[in-house]
C-alpha cells in the first residue's frame, strides 16, 4: 500500500459518460491485483474533501488505468484533469479476486463494474464468458477488449438498445444451466449494483457454485480504520461478524454476505 503522487498520462473519453484515466503509478501499479482499488484525492475539489474509491481497470508497465463514470461532484471535477496534472493516490487497496480457482469463469458486470473484471480477465489463467448489463448501450463498456483477450461476451440492456433486452441475470441463468448440462463447474466473479450482486449470489448458492462479489460501499479511509464501510458477514461457523468492505473486501464470497 502506497500513498503515491501520480501524473496523468492520458485521459480520453470512452463514451459520453465514461472516461478512462491513465496514471503513472510506479510501484503502486506493479503491486496491483485484480479486484483491488485505489483511493484518490481529486484535485479541484476543496482540500477538505474525502478521497474517492475506484477499481483498478488495468495495470501495465507502471501505468494504472481507471474506468469511471461522472456521477457527482468529484467525478465531474475529475473529468477535466489534463495530462501531466498530478493527483494523490492511495493503493492498491482491498483483497482482490482469487486467481487460483477452477471452473469456467463467468464474469458478471453492471455499468462501471466491468472495470475490475477486465483487469481480472487479463490475469486469470483461463478464459470464459463476460456477461455485461447496463441501462442502455452507452453503459456497455470495454467488450471489444474482452473479445481481444479471447473471451465470449454476452450483453443485456434494460432498453434493448444493445444485446438482449432485460437484466443480465437472464443470460447468466442460461449460461449456468448450459454449463450444468455440460457437467462444467463454474466460478462467478461479479461487480455492479447491489441488486445485481444479490441476484448473482443467490443463483450461485442455488447452483452450488462459487461467486465472488465486489461490494461498492461509500468509504472514508479506504484502509480499514474508520468503520464507515462495513458489511455484516457470515462466519463459517454460522455466527456473524462485521467486516470492512475496504480492507476485508471489497470481494466477498456470495455465501459470506448477510444481505
Amino acid at each position, binding site marked *: 500500500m502506497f500513498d503515491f503522487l501520480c501524473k496523468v498520462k492520458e485521459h480520453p473519453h470512452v463514451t459520453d459518460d465514461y472516461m478512462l484515466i491513465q496514471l503513472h503509478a510506479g510501484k503502486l501499479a506493479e503491486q496491483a491485483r485484480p479486484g483491488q482499488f485505489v483511493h484518490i*484525492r481529486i484535485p479541484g475539489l476543496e482540500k*477538505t474533501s*474525502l478521497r474517492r474509491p475506484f477499481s483498478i481497470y488495468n495495470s501495465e508497465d507502471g501505468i494504472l488505468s481507471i474506468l469511471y463514470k461522472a456521477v457527482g461532484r468529484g467525478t465531474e471535477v475529475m473529468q477535466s484533469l489534463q495530462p501531466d496534472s498530478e493527483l494523490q493516490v492511495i493503493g492498491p487497496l482491498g483483497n482482490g479476486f482469487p486467481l487460483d480457482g477452477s471452473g469456467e469463469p463467468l464474469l458478471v458486470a453492471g455499468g462501471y463494474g466491468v472495470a475490475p473484471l477486465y483487469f481480472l480477465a487479463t490475469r486469470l489463467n483461463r478464459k470464459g464468458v463476460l456477461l455485461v448489463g447496463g441501462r442502455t448501450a452507452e453503459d456497455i463498456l470495454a467488450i471489444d477488449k474482452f473479445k481481444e483477450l479471447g473471451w465470449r461476451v454476452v450483453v443485456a440492456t434494460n432498453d434493448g438498445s444493445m444485446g438482449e433486452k432485460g437484466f443480465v441475470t437472464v443470460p447468466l441463468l442460461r449460461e449456468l444451466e448450459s454449463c450444468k448440462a455440460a457437467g462444467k463447474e463454474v466460478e462467478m466473479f461479479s461487480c455492479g449494483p447491489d441488486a445485481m450482486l444479490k441476484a448473482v449470489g443467490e443463483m450461485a448458492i442455488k447452483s452450488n457454485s462459487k461467486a465472488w462479489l465486489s461490494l461498492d460501499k461509500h468509504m472514508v479511509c479506504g*484502509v*480499514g*480504520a*474508520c*468503520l464507515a*464501510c462495513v458489511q455484516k458477514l457470515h462466519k463459517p461457523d454460522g455466527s456473524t461478524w*462485521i467486516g470492512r468492505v475496504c480492507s476485508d473486501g471489497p470481494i466477498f464470497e456470495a455465501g459470506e454476505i448477510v444481505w
Partner: protein
Amino acid sequence: MSEVDLSVNLGGIKMNNPVTVASGTFGYGREYADLVDITQLGAVTVKGIRLEPWGGNDLPRHVEVPGGMVNAIGLQGPGVDGFVNEYMPFLLEKGVPVIVNIWGTSLEEYAEVAARLSDVEGICGLELNISCPNVKEGGNAFGTDPKTVAKLVASVRAATKLPLMPKLAPNVSDIKPFVRAAQESGADAISLINTIPAMVIDIESRTPVLSNKVGGLSGSAIHPVAVKLVWEAAQAATVPILAMGGIVAAEQAIEFMIAGATSVAVGTANFIDPSTSIAVINGIQDYLERHEMKSATELTGSIILNK
C-alpha cells in the same frame, strides 16, 4: 540534529512530541502503518472500546459536508479482550505509546474497562469518551452535566492508576465547570473536542442521510469552535490539555498549543492525507526553531492578550 525539545508530558502520558491521532480516525494504528511511520507519533490513540464487542450503527455511517464530514459510526469495536489480543501485540512491538479511548453504558462499565486495561503492557493512558453523539446510551449522555462527569471520573479513577483523560463534549454553553469537575475528581488531563452534534437530510427522499439520523461534525469546519473551547478550558485547567478539531496542518496544531494545549490530535485529516500527523510534527518543530523556542512546552499557553 535539532536542539528543540519536542517532548511533552500529558498528565503522565510521556510523548516524544505533542502529536497523536484522534480516536476513531486511525483505527488501532495497524491500518495506517503502511502509510505512516507510527513510531514517529507522540502516541497512537485507538478507536473507542467498551467491555464487550459492539456492532455500531447501521449504514450509512457518514456523509461528506462542506469543510468536513458528519459521522455516526456508533463506536463499533472488538471489546476489551478483542482489542488486547488482536491489536495490542502489534502496537507493543512498534513501541509507540498507546492511549485507549474507552466508553460504557454505565459508570460500572467505564470503571471495569479501565480496570481491565490497567495492567496491559504498552497502554500509557485512557481517554474517557463521555462525548460521543452517536450512541443512545453512554457517550454524550455522560458528558453534558458536570456532576455526572465528576461521578464518572471518580469511579474510573478508583479503578485504575493509568493517566486518565476525559474527553469533553463541545455542545455546552460553558466548558469550565466540566474541566473543573473532571480535574477535581482525579483526571490527569483533559481532551477536547469531540465532534459537534449535526444532521444532514436528503431533500429528495426527505429522510436523514445517516441511519442513526444524527451524527457528529468533524474536520476544518469545527476548528474555530474547538480553539475557543480549548482556550477557555485552559483558563480553568490545572492539568494538561489534549486538543483536537479540524487540524489539517501544523498551523492549527500550533494555534491549539498557543491557546493552551500541551498535545494535539489529528483526526479527520488522516482520511484525506495520512501524512498529516507527521507533517504536523515537522511543522511544530520548524515553528519552534523559527521562533527560537527551546521546547514544545514553551508554546503551550503562549497566547498574548493585549487588552
